[in-house]
């Protein structure tokens, strides 16, 4: 059963732009990305939009739908208000390139800062012996599809452009947590994370967790434990003593 759907899509580039209205034919069971593709194929061939898998696995088609950061491929039309136009705008935290495509190079820059996985001296060469309960914590964070919705939502960057140089953002906090919780990693990235990558800026409002399409518990399972671990290493003389001993033994 097809019906007419009203779309309001932001069109423009770095110099500015505004919402343009389109009416497209839509079908039952479709997602927002289908409607955008329909507009592109029939009315606006040059409408710029990123997408790849259309299955919620690659994290390319992030946008703000009726003001809420979401994946266009995983937002069914049926979850949006009936009869009202669907407004689609680009991610606000990153500079617009064109239409719904933004410059997300910030994230690839931050990825370069992460000190790589470093196997322990006990098990320097794979195959490693690691047990399921021990890998599971890190596995949760490795579900991340790098859609950048959490980065887009985090108000530390969204409202404060000036924080970007010294703030890695929630996606990378879970990356640091993943490595810290890896059962066979030897590298301590905690002071770097605190001092250079801005873990301390996060005041745990959990906005990132709310928009995560993979339902990763970013705040509870990664950021809060990392904050605790940072505090432990920094201020707890006992932990410091033992961690020094561990390093010395290794």
């Amino acid at each position, binding site marked *: 059963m097809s019906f007419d759907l009203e779309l309001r899509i932001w069109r423009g*580039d770095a110099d500015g732009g505004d919402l343009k209205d389109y009416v497209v034919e839509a*079908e*039952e*069971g*479709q*997602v927002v990305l*289908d409607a955008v593709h329909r507009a*592109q*194929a*029939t009315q*606006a*061939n*040059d*409408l*710029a*939009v*990123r*997408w*790849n*898998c*259309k*299955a*919620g*696995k*690659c*994290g*390319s088609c992030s946008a703000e739908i009726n003001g809420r950061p979401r994946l266009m491929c*995983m937002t*069914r039309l049926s979850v949006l208000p009936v009869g009202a136009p669907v407004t689609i705008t680009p991610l606000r935290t990153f500079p617009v*390139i*064109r*239409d719904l*495509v933004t*410059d*997300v190079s910030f994230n*690839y820059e931050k*990825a*370069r800062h*992460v000190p*790589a*996985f470093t*196997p322990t001296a006990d098990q320097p*060469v*794979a*195959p*490693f*012996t*690691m*047990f*399921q309960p021990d*890998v599971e914590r*890190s*596995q949760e964070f*490795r*579900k991340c*599809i*790098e859609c950048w919705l959490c980065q887009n939502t985090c108000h530390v960057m969204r409202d404060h452009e000036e924080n970007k140089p010294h703030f890695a953002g929630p996606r990378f906090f879970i990356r640091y947590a993943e*490595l810290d919780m*890896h059962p066979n*990693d030897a590298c301590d990235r905690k002071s770097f994370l605190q001092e250079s990558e801005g873990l301390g800026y996060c005041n745990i409002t959990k906005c990132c967790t709310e928009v995560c399409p993979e339902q990763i518990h970013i705040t509870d399972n990664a950021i809060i434990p990392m904050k605790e671990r940072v505090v432990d290493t920094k201020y707890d003389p006992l932990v410091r003593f033992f961690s020094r001993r561990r390093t010395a033994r290794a």
Partner: protein
Amino acid sequence: MAATESFEHHSYDVIVIGAGGAGLRAAVAAHDAGARTALVCRSLLGKAHTVMAEGGIAAALGNLWPEDNWEVHFRDTMRGGKLLNHWRMAELHAKEAPARVYELEQWGALFDRTPSGKISQRDFGGHRYARLAHVGDRTGLEMIRALQQRAVSAGIDVFMELTITDLLKDGDRIAGAFGYWRESGRFVVFEAPAVVLATGGIGKSWKVTSNSWECTGDGHALALRAGATLLNMEFVQFHPTGMVWPLSVRGLLVTESVRGDGGVLRNSEGQRFMFDYIPDFFKAETADNVEEADRWYDDKSNRRPPELLPRDEVARAINSEIKAGRGTPHGGVFLDIASRRTPEFIKRRLPSMYHQFKELADVDITKEAMEIGPTCHYVMGGVEVDPDSQASVVPGLFAAGEVAGGMHGANRLGGNSLSDLIVFGKRAGEFAAEYAKTAQAALPKVAEVTLSRSAEEALAPFRAGEAAENPYSVHQDLQETMQDLVGIIRVEDELKEALEKVAALQARATRIAVEGNRQYNPGWHLALDLRNMLLVSQAVTAAALERQESRGGHTRDDYPNADPYWGTQNVVVALKAPRVGTAGTELSVRRQPLPKLPPELAKLLEDVH
């Protein structure tokens, strides 16, 4: 605008085109071998089609079944490919896959574990033992992240959202590549003696497909235009289980792990129909009754369930059931794991499938059966390469992963593609680096005249002429043509009709006109991708017409059986007058005898258990 435009120039030893599993692994290998390496990809890093791979990486680690080893993996791969595989590639693949998997672990990948703390392995179609290293049903994501993070920490130069439109040559040799930034539309010239193609598949030319927009056969077409040969392009894998409803997600992959973990196929009458479709070739190793099939999951001395036959067999069976009127309301069959495993088991082993059906189809797979049907998934055919070095017939041009041919024969086993990527990605990168070293003595030069021609041709869609065509309409018509006439079941008349239709579409494609400017313009991008899709579709159809038999991913209604003669022949397609830029489209098609299988490997195939 091209005439006055100065192109951005880069110079490297090795250019890798494509940043999925094969491209990333090739770039890391070339870099480690000391080559100045550039990795060029059309999307953002980490978004390549590898990310969608679900089930696992096949490697005979022997973690669950110590009886498993490379010889059994080799045998399974060859039999799954209906013995048309290049034996040397299948041998290297089976031998080297375990080391490549452990390498991923060394770089930070976290696979699911066995109770004793080793990498866990799961059952899949055509593999005698549980062999697939996996992370739930998101193994591709784990692989691409591990490789991506390795490439980034190695400091390899990555050119994201840059599309290569032409390979550049100096005489017979590769001299580099030409392309454009998607963001700005500005042209870029890469000068390099060695190029590795790792561009993946061709599935976007079919209507029902599991492939993303990037699977436009760019590497296949670039290779043809550079004078390379394509092998066995008629073999296209239709994965048995794609979603069929809602239409929005038609074709979206449902992992084979559902069957590996106990799921079964039923028709509208509730019957487990796969028992009726066991071919003679697999009779000795396939259970012919429900009781034995169900015992197999825990006791491998039983024969395997027919649901786990190779994909070509299962896809054809589903197709027959639907045609016989025993399909589901939306034109598929039922895939049922709900009645066979607990909700906890399903959610733990198949989290993405649970999520995908819940979100996109309102189906809870722990409570009800899924509706599924065949979907275009993978091309076994590809650039003809040397099995050890992955070098094509064009000096300096290498290919690895789905774009390369030979490894999988007539049909690929599930799990063998991820292992293919890392085994042959590494080899391609290393040999490309070595080739680049020897080329330093007399580096190839890029001719300026070729560059301006490449630019002119790329900009053609902006010069609207008479009877302008919309790129999206041409694409849609191509998908209908390939779906209807070059699908799972083929026949001579329809293949001939398809060739005519593709030729007509090629004519229409020359009149494509696009709106807007060069900045991030998807209409323009599609217009350029279409040149490749059309050429590759033509190659597939021509090869399908040539092979007069049914084998693996090529079924001819007019030649329904496998033919011993064709079991000794490859079909090789090339351009008659290869030319960089928009080439003529006249193809040559010839038969070429298979390389001879050494007796010690032939012996391994005799054991049919």
